[in-house]
């Protein structure tokens, strides 16, 4: 009896996950009391010392806490206690805004660079220098000039997602098959119409690859940026829970960051498939 590859892979995945949970559970479970110690001292140390309970929460603790969060994702008990849904919402909104601004700048500019060798050569040194700068290095400058931490975070997202899109758009536009351009030329298609009917569809898969790389980077950077600017967002949540020494919440946040990142990537992967046509 043979099952499809997909089915077998799913079985292996589930087994691996179960094994991971099992080891995690065993490694963090409570053992019996560690030994005799004075009750005063035991009171000070808490269950970590008295019952051999690890400071690291086990899968059951995390699961229980996660369920709490899932049940109440949008509660708001003041600036330091907001539901995970709200925090994620802030992060996604910042990424969305910064990313959208980056799309609006990078794609037209990338088109220009791809179509004009002059502009390409002229802008190349700037891009080469600006591209490797860590987006967080812009933060102080952004905070000083913009004077608003939330907008500064959006600016940091903008600056980190602009480069992959810009370079991919320029590359995609510059490497459109010569014969497609020649088709448009022999049909006397004007520059604007050519850009939209030949170059854009031909470069779309490459542009979307750039957009996919960018959203990944933006989601990486938002966590760090929010740790810096504070206030709201999933990055702030992680740092706040670290200050609260709630490792359970930190683990939940890590998990959610991964899941949201995956979803963002999948959405763009799907878009990329929609514009890719085999020859």
């Amino acid at each position: 009896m043979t099952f499809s590859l997909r089915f077998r892979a799913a079985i292996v995945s589930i087994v691996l996950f179960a094994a991971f949970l099992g080891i995690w559970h065993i490694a963090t479970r409570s053992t019996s009391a560690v030994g005799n110690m004075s009750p005063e001292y035991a009171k000070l140390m808490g269950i970590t010392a008295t019952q051999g309970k690890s400071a690291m929460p086990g899968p059951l603790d995390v699961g229980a806490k996660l369920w709490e969060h899932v049940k109440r994702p949008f509660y708001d008990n003041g600036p330091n206690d907001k539901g995970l849904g709200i925090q994620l919402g802030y992060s996604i909104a910042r990424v969305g805004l910064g990313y959208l601004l980056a799309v609006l700048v990078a794609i037209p500019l990338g088109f220009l660079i791809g179509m004009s060798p002059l502009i390409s050569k002229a802008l190349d040194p700037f891009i080469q220098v600006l591209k490797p700068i860590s987006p967080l290095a812009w933060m102080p400058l952004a905070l000083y000039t913009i004077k608003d931490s939330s907008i500064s975070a959006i600016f940091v997202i903008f600056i980190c997602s602009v480069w992959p899109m810009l370079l991919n758009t320029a590359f995609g536009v510059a490497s459109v098959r010569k014969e497609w351009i020649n088709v448009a030329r022999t049909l006397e298609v004007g520059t604007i119409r050519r850009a939209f009917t030949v170059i854009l569809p031909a470069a779309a898969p490459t542009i979307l690859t750039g957009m996919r790389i960018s959203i990944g980077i933006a989601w990486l950077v938002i966590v760090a940026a929010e740790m810096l600017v504070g206030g709201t967002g999933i990055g702030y949540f992680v740092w706040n829970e670290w200050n609260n020494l709630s490792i359970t919440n930190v683990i939940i946040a890590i998990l959610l960051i991964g899941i949201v990142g995956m979803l963002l990537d999948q959405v763009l992967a799907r878009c990329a498939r929609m514009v890719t046509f085999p020859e």
Partner: protein
Amino acid sequence: MTEKFISIEGIAKRYPAPGGTTTVFENLWLSMSRGEFGCVIGHSGCGKTTVLNILAGLDEPSDGAVIVDGQAIEGTSLDRAVIFQSHALLPWRTVLGNVAYAVTSKWRNWDRAKVKAHAQKFIDLVGLTGSEHKRPSELSGGMKQRVGIARALSITPKIMLMDEPFSALDALTRGTLQDEVRRICLETGQTAFMITHDVDEAIYLADKIFLMTNGPGAVLAEIVENPLPKDRGRIDLHRHPYYYALRNHIVDFLVTRSKTFTSGNPGHDPRDVPVVRPGKPELVIASVSESSQQASWPGLSRPSTS
């Protein structure tokens, strides 16, 4: 027929090269009448594709001019349609979309229904009825090239330019498409200019065959007028008494004379290229032994070889 519909006048193409310039060809003169089918044959590197690109307006000559229908050409034009070697269909458009793209480029203010009807007419003409909504990736090589032909024809060009359009196809498909192209050109009186290195393709399709010597510094050596009747068929083409004379003449040129022509003919005038019409008795050498085929061409006496 003396009126020159296409006139290539002294064009040259030079490229800067390390230590001087490379001349692909120079002082090339060539003319064709309306409704004629011209084929250029030559080895790779003789610049035949460059000639076609200049004619299409995709490339510019370093010197000289090209006059089509009494007007010097400047850049590309919807009057001159190109059928590309690699079909060059837009993969994100359907068959209908690819042809319609050309139609809307020519007639910008046509409404959707009119464009569709016009495109459909040419899709039917090349025998692709029923495949309108397929994308190029779903088509075979021959079908893709049919779309290429339909797209070129749909803009009703004055000239159809073909750059080795069938060289990437298998022999059977190539034969069928040659038939189609010949039928369409004869029916519509289309002027066509084609580049090939398939001698049989040239013999079957062309009225005039332009022989080019090897590059760099290629010249147009001879114009061969096809002596075969206009209503020739592909199946019994090789039975015509002039066929082998014509074929041997071209093959001989390609094998030997294309290399030595320039040095052997110092007095060659590029403006007055000799016109040859193989099949005249003195040129027939190879078609000696076959006497049984005579009956298939009534009215034509076998050329004497004695």
